[in-house]
């Protein structure tokens, strides 16, 4: 670890953070900090974009026009989030093309949760309720982090994620209060989505490599387990209201800590999925690559047209 006293850039940077100031693109930033933030923001952007796929999978089958419109608008919001986040990452000097290339070549990661399939309509409700719900908890923390452009993107995005979560919960509510077949569909979907949603917060810190530095630089303000606990406490109560059963035989309320405790998480599965071996890793990357390759001639046409008509872009 570099000694801050020996590095004037690092020293000035850490002094600013200590005063509670945000880092901005024009500042001289330590190279490690810059790299960590590009990695995090681009992963986050990729997650928004890849995350469109499992939900878009049900747009054409949504069971009512109101749901079809709601889902389309939600997936469109995620594309918008991807755009803000790529722009925020670009403030650190890495162009969007390069970041997308890292995704398509498998060098960059995205959230593991999107490597699970959407098998029924209820999965769309579960994603809104659970996945957007978990994302908000993580993003509310990031909205207080030390990098200004990331903070601003997160504040804007969190508002929309809250709407997504309410919409998802409302969709699940309609199922839970619906016909027996709808109720069964909701429970079955919860059974599948609960374990991977818990994994979204990442393994406990002792198993995570990047954490110490991120805490010191105020990028990570809470531990993975703390964030996960917030999610569990909030979601267990919501499931009870709906009359759905959380699929965890070890789940119990701890009177001493006033928190819900959960059974063990299968981190082996988590690492297998991160390693490319989840149920949908190959499908997701193939879909992104196909869209990119099929769109190449369109982007080439737009670039050629812009080059021939410079006044239009002036």
């Amino acid at each position: 670890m570099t000694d801050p006293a020996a590095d004037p850039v690092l020293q000035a940077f850490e002094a600013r953070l200590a005063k509670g100031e945000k880092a901005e693109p024009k500042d001289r930033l330590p190279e490690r900090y810059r790299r960590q933030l590009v990695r995090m923001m681009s992963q986050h952007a990729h997650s928004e974009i890849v995350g469109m796929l499992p939900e878009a999978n049900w747009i054409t089958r949504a069971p009512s026009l109101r749901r079809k419109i709601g889902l389309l608008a939600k997936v469109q919001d995620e594309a918008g989030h991807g755009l803000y986040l790529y722009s925020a990452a670009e403030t650190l000097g890495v162009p969007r093309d390069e970041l997308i290339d890292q995704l398509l070549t498998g060098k960059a990661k995205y959230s593991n949760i999107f490597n699970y399939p959407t098998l029924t309509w209820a999965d769309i409700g579960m994603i809104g309720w659970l996945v957007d719900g978990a994302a908000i908890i993580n993003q509310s923390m990031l909205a207080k982090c030390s990098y200004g452009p990331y903070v601003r993107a997160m504040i804007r995005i969190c508002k929309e994620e809250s709407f997504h979560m309410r919409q998802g919960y409302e969709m699940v509510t309609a199922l839970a209060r619906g016909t027996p077949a709808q109720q069964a569909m909701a429970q079955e979907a919860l059974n599948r989505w609960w374990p991977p949603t818990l994994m979204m917060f990442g393994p406990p810190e002792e198993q995570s490599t990047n954490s110490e530095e991120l805490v010191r630089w105020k990028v990570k303000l809470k531990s993975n387990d703390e964030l996960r606990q917030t999610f569990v406490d909030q979601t267990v109560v919501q499931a009870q209201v709906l009359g759905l059963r959380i699929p965890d035989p070890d789940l119990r309320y701890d009177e001493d800590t006033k928190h819900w405790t959960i059974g063990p998480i299968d981190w082996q599965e988590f690492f297998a999925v991160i390693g490319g071996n989840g149920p949908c890793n190959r499908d997701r990357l193939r879909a992104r690559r196909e869209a990119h390759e099929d769109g190449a001639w369109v982007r080439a046409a737009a670039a050629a047209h812009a080059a021939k008509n410079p006044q239009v872009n002036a």
Partner: protein
Amino acid sequence: MPDGASQLTTPADFAFAGYLARLADSHLVLGHRLSEWCGHGPVLEEDLALTNLALDCLGHATVLLRLLGQADGTGRDEDQLAYFREAVEFRNVLLVEQPNGDFARTIARVFLFAAYALPLYEQLQRSTDAALAAAATKFHPELRYHLRHAARWMLILGDGTDESHRRLQEAIDAWWPYTGELFALWPDDPALIERGLIPHPDRVRAAWEATITEVLGQARLARPVAGMHMLLGGPIGRHTETLGYLLAEMQIVARSFPGASW
């Protein structure tokens, strides 16, 4: 309760209902096709834009289907109409039900349809049916955006590279036989025109022709030869085979859960 359902029914006006179905189903099916692009666009900004178009079309369809459920005297709501009719009961024009094809086809279809819908809804604002006139007034600015967006891409693709020019010309040629249907006069139409409910298609066609001539010219695209055989049938329920597959996908969940609300 499904929202939008109304138990109040007025005497059925089957001719007008048939016309409303032509409009409503065309927006519904085009919106469905455009929604297939979501998550797969050629560039993120265009993914957002195509989704905007899809959202507008589905919004238009919702409004028009509600009017249809009133006009046909059944009181059916938009979901009963969208999800529980068979392909032969759909009245959309054939142009919109065809598979998307590549981005050039998709854009060319939006262009051809919006160039027709914009003057159509301009005139429908003066329909003697107050509800349809109000809907037309609401849709009109959105359709103007559709036309502007599609026309901009027509120029970009027409002018961009040899490949984009070729693809766009192929798209226009492929869609052309479906354009005659936009202006066909069906047996029930003269009476509706007489009642001031709908405009004469020739008046819409004149504006469409002007837009097409201008944009094809700017994009340096050849207009397909005159006198080409035109395919007709959508507005009387004589569809192409692809509509059955589209509806099978669209209606599967709604039909798999009898009695469900969503």
